[in-house]
């Protein structure tokens, strides 16, 4: 390049250094703000007998306890005849915990912060990733790689600096759930997995807290309020956990970004109704949202089950039992986002991505079968691979035989058969089947195309 001046690397270094300074300043501001909040709390706790700070000298003369700033900020709520100062005061005194700052938690947290919930807790142990951005609207690109709790707390603070925001940067487990959840009036379940849902529901039963539960996957969403004034809990409805195959995750099945957005907004609404004692919460009913057909159905669900293992009449479910209960074993699925890594094959039936890349480079005769679903294959695939989805493998074995014969004919000698999938689990299942039906030398590629992107070709798109 002709033009003189700092090169790209120097600019990138400067950006990094400025970002570090910015992060440092932001953390100083946060800690000063926290000190200020604590001071306010300390001086006013006596007079208002509540959990959140109400500032201004006018407080004493206004019986509802709203400061002039609050009256201005929440004026549209106060103007609502069915909401008004009483409901707003209730909100300002309420505390709500949102478990999960992902697709559901993003809009839920933003609305709960902006509407003036006195104390808002956020539990999350993940970091922000690029593939979260299409639905987790509370996070911005600048926070990629940083804890979701920090990002979410900062966004909430940016819309409402007058409420108390509590960050719980840890995964919710049986060991900490009772302690964390006991500090709040209402719990919002915005998690993404079955074991967490059972654990949070059981903990709400133990602590007697209402639970606003939302879920979304693909193009559908569900919403219910559990354990509210004698209503059913999650276990009353689903005493038997779904089999692992039925527990799908957004990272496997996909989700249209706005769908959890809608359910998260509805969760905020239900939490606000309960916190402010307004309206009729969605207890004993389940809302089913179908994005494709633009339909919302509300179904009456069963009442509390007298035989429920958590809240049943004769059940004595204790805190100790809760803490010793293995929710991952119960649901046979993990609480963490990372998918399981299976080990179904002996080592000599598997090769690494690097080994496979050598086979390609050396021009060794082989067939590569990609067993991912067709719509995955269309996103990205390795060159010269043959797509035979695992679900159709049994019926399409002849295609593999044909391809093998063809390549063996061209080379006049035997060819190898390799199988790849997204992460290296389905490929093992496929190899097990292929070996059984006669392809005894079939091998799978460890780690799948995710592994390939990691160890062989970093420019290979991840999805």
């Amino acid at each position, binding site marked *: 390049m002709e033009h003189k001046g700092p090169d790209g690397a120097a600019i990138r270094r400067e950006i990094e250094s400025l970002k570090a300074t910015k992060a440092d300043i932001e953390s100083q501001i946060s800690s000063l703000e926290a000190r200020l909040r604590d001071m306010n709390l300390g001086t006013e706790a006596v007079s208002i007998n509540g959990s959140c700070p109400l500032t201004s000298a006018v407080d004493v003369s206004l019986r509802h306890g709203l400061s002039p700033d609050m009256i201005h900020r929440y004026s549209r709520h106060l103007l609502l005849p069915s909401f008004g100062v009483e409901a707003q005061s209730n909100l300002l005194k309420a505390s709500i915990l949102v478990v999960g700052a*992902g697709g559901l938690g993003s809009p839920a947290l933003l609305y709960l912060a902006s509407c003036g919930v006195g104390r808002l807790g956020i539990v999350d142990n993940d970091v922000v990733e690029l593939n979260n951005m299409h639905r987790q609207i509370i996070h911005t690109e600048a926070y990629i790689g940083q804890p979701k709790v920090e990002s979410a707390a900062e966004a909430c603070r940016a819309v409402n600096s007058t409420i108390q925001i509590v960050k719980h940067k840890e995964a919710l487990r049986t060991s900490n759930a009772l302690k964390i959840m006991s500090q709040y009036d209402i719990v919002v379940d915005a*998690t993404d997995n079955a074991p967490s849902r059972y654990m949070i529901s059981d903990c709400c039963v133990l602590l007697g807290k209402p639970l606003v539960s939302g879920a*979304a996957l693909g193009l*559908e969403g*569900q919403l219910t309020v559990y354990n509210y004034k004698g209503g059913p809990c999650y276990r009353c409805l689903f005493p038997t956990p779904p089999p692992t195959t*039925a527990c799908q995750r957004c990272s496997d099945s996909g989700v249209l970004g706005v769908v959890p957005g809608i359910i998260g907004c509805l969760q905020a609404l239900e939490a606000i109704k309960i916190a402010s004692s307004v309206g009729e919460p969605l207890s004993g009913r389940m809302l089913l949202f179908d994005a494709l057909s633009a339909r919302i159905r509300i*179904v009456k669900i069963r009442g509390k089950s007298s035989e429920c293992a958590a809240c049943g009449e004769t059940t004595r479910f204790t805190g100790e039992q809760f803490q010793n209960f293995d929710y991952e074993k119960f649901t046979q699925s993990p609480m963490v986002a990372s998918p399981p890594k299976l080990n179904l094959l002996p080592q000599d039936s598997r090769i690494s991505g690097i080994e496979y890349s050598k086979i390609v480079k050396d021009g060794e005769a082989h067939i590569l079968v990609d067993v991912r679903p067709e719509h995955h294959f269309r996103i990205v695939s390795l060159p010269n691979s043959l797509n035979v989805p695992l679900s159709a493998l049994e019926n399409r074995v002849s295609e593999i035989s044909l391809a093998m014969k063809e390549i063996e004919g061209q080379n006049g000698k035997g060819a190898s058969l390799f199988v790849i999938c997204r992460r290296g689990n389905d490929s093992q299942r496929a190899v097990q089947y292929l070996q059984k039906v006669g392809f005894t030398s079939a091998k799978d590629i460890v780690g799948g195309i995710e592994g390939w992107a990691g160890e062989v070709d970093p420019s290979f798109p991840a999805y």
Partner: protein
Amino acid sequence: MERQMEPEMETSTASSGDKVLSSISIKVLFFARARDLTGLSETPLVVPYGSTANYCLEALISKFPRLEEIHHCMVLALNEEYAAGSSTVKDNDELAIIPPISGG
């Protein structure tokens, strides 16, 4: 009166208005995983008069064997209300099969 009929007992009849019915037709709605497993969001189902919700579920599983996966983990709703497996279905009823969603 609740009673569960076998499919072969088509001779049994009961009057519904002016018509005499030996079998009834209902609409089944599938949600979430049930949609994936059947590939449908709804389907008509003809069952003998007097059939229970459980009987309908069994009939659906024999029609769509993959539904067995969620057999023990679902909410059954008859005309948008919770239904025990022993509830009797009527002509033109709407039976919803609602497995839980875990994602978020």
